[in-house]
């Protein structure tokens, strides 16, 4: 059993920490994108609107390296299965071995992202047929997660009992304190780097640890206040309400503004569907894996013409059944981490929080009527 150690890292040493990691890994770190317009928040709580995007540390100026207060724009899965990539070539089968490149490290991963990685792991590492590319990247990657000192309007992790600070599933975790960071060392892989960082890492004091606990409690309290406004049903009710809502008119009502852009599925960190497509390449051919999405018209269409999800409302409903029925049946928890990326990306303003609340209300209203 690996026992976690926690160190303190001074603010001015964070670049030294990154520098050291970038020697062994291709390090990605968050940079800030300032939002030009302030967003009016319906819950009445004043919330930040800036965004963060991951970029290669080696290509950034030092002042561009940021600590992200909440999750980055892009779903973390994009580093483990690329949007479009070659998975093999044939014939003859490509036996070439890739020249060993440095594995990557990602800083700025949040607890919602770590929850999503559990879903991706289940899909791509699970079963008798693990995906080799995913396995290779997942085993090679160094995950540097961090606590969220703030949250965005769309954040709702706590609605599903996911805390805005990681406690497992990372190699390093950073918690920002006033004068520096607490650094949790969460894996043997991370521990092997500590020796080389010993000049900047000092054991954390109990005062620092309790300071972190107070900060974490503060963020949770603040986020819970925000979520009170949205009345998102508890995770224990999710499977029931989506099943009960199968014949609800809600799906048809909510799909009205959908333009089938696929934004919700591509920005989703727990979505995993893909399509294999082949292309000729000289005498050879290559096989490409491309992310696919169940909101698209031909997602379930077979060559013979049958399509179980021919209407748009069926596809919206299918997305919820997959996330809140299939996954709860299959692995015991929902395929939604509450990151809110689908809410922010949707040009039709289709809001998962709203749909879940409505499903909950419909079920309970009907139960009351029949009682």
């Amino acid at each position: 059993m690996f026992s976690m150690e926690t160190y303190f890292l001074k603010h001015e040493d964070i670049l030294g920490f990154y520098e050291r990691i970038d020697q062994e890994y291709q390090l990605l770190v968050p940079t800030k994108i300032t939002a030009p317009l302030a967003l009016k928040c319906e819950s009445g709580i004043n919330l930040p609107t800036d965004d963060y995007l991951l970029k290669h540390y080696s290509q950034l100026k030092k002042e561009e390296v940021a600590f992200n207060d909440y999750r980055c724009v892009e779903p973390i899965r994009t580093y483990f299965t690329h949007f479009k990539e070659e998975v093999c070539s044939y014939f003859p089968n490509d036996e070439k071995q890739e020249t060993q490149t440095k594995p990557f490290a990602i800083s700025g991963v949040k607890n919602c992202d770590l929850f999503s990685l559990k879903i991706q792991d289940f899909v791509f590492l699970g079963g008798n047929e693990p995906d080799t590319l995913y396995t290779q990247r997942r085993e090679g990657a160094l995950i540097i997660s961090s606590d969220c000192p703030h949250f965005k309007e769309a954040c709702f992790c706590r609605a599903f009992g996911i805390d805005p600070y990681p406690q497992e599933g990372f190699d390093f975790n950073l918690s920002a304190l006033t004068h520096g960071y607490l650094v949790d060392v969460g894996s043997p892989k991370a521990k092997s780097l500590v020796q080389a960082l010993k000049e900047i890492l000092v054991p954390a004091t109990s005062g620092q640890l309790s300071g972190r606990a107070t900060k974490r409690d503060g963020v949770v309290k603040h986020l819970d206040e925000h979520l009170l406004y949205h009345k998102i049903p508890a995770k224990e009710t999710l499977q029931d309400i989506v099943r009960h809502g199968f014949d609800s008119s809600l799906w048809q009502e909510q799909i009205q503004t959908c333009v089938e852009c696929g934004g919700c599925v591509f920005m989703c960190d727990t979505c995993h569907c893909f399509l294999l497509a082949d292309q000729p390449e000289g005498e050879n051919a290559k096989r490409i894996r491309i992310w696919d999405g169940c909101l698209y018209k031909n997602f379930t269409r077979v060559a013979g013409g049958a399509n179980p999800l021919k209407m748009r409302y069926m596809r919206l409903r299918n997305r919820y059944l997959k996330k809140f029925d299939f996954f709860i049946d299959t692995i015991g928890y929902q395929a939604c981490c509450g990151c809110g990326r689908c809410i922010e990306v949707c040009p039709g303003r289709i809001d998962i929080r709203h749909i879940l609340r409505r499903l909950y209300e419909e079920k309970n209203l009907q139960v009351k009527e029949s009682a």
Partner: protein
Amino acid sequence: MNKMSTSSHTEKNIYQPFEATVVDIKEETPTIKTVVLKIRSNFSFRTGQFIEMTVPGLGEAPFTPSSDPGVKTSIEVTIMKVGMVTEKIHGLQKEDTVGIRGPYGKGYPLDKFKGKDVVIVGGGVGLAPLRSLLLSLFSDIDNYRSICLRYGARTPADVIYKELLPEWAKKKKVDVVTTVDIGDPSWKGNVGLVTTILKDLPVDMKQAVAVVCGPPIMMKFVTLKLLDIGFKPADIYLSMEKSMSCGVGKCGHCRVGKFYACKDGPVFTYEELKDIHDIWD
């Protein structure tokens, strides 16, 4: 860009097809052909499992082999021309190379059929996977009470395995009845939907199972008919046709309730499916 796994040579790339050579092509109907493939020696499949067949540079599609799994040197796949990949397959010539991945899925649970009357109901090209099942049953016929094949096609021209059907009918313990939805002057047999030849099956309902494969609408009405004549939902085996890309439960296309047709099926009992919405669509 990462291209292939570097972890080890032994680790299998699940998307990689292996080569197979076309050794024969038989025309079954104007839109259906049976392709005979010579494959590498260590490939084998259980009846009812499916493969992904690649047309190099174009793409792949799922098919259940129609040949006897006992034959190890080649497989046969009976394919209807319905889309981009199948159209190219229909244009294949002898000696052409295709790709194969698989086999995938669970296949028919032959153990559960042992000692029973096995009613096999096929519609159109849906007889293809059932032929593989029939050949498996024939090769071990002493272990089954009887085999009762009921086959329907749209018109006489759409009937596949025209030469094989009369041969099968001559086998011991095998009863074959065919029908067409719309007859023509040359057709002397039954005319009507396949459900019309499911009356008075020469089987003991207490120890019979039914296996159905065909277009979705046919599967629906055959299932309802079978229930009507006394089959239990757990004794009706259905081949679910779903969009499948990866074959290994990752790409997400073939979800049916809590199942993926590719890894949990493609054969399901009606008992497993009956509470799932819209299974016939």
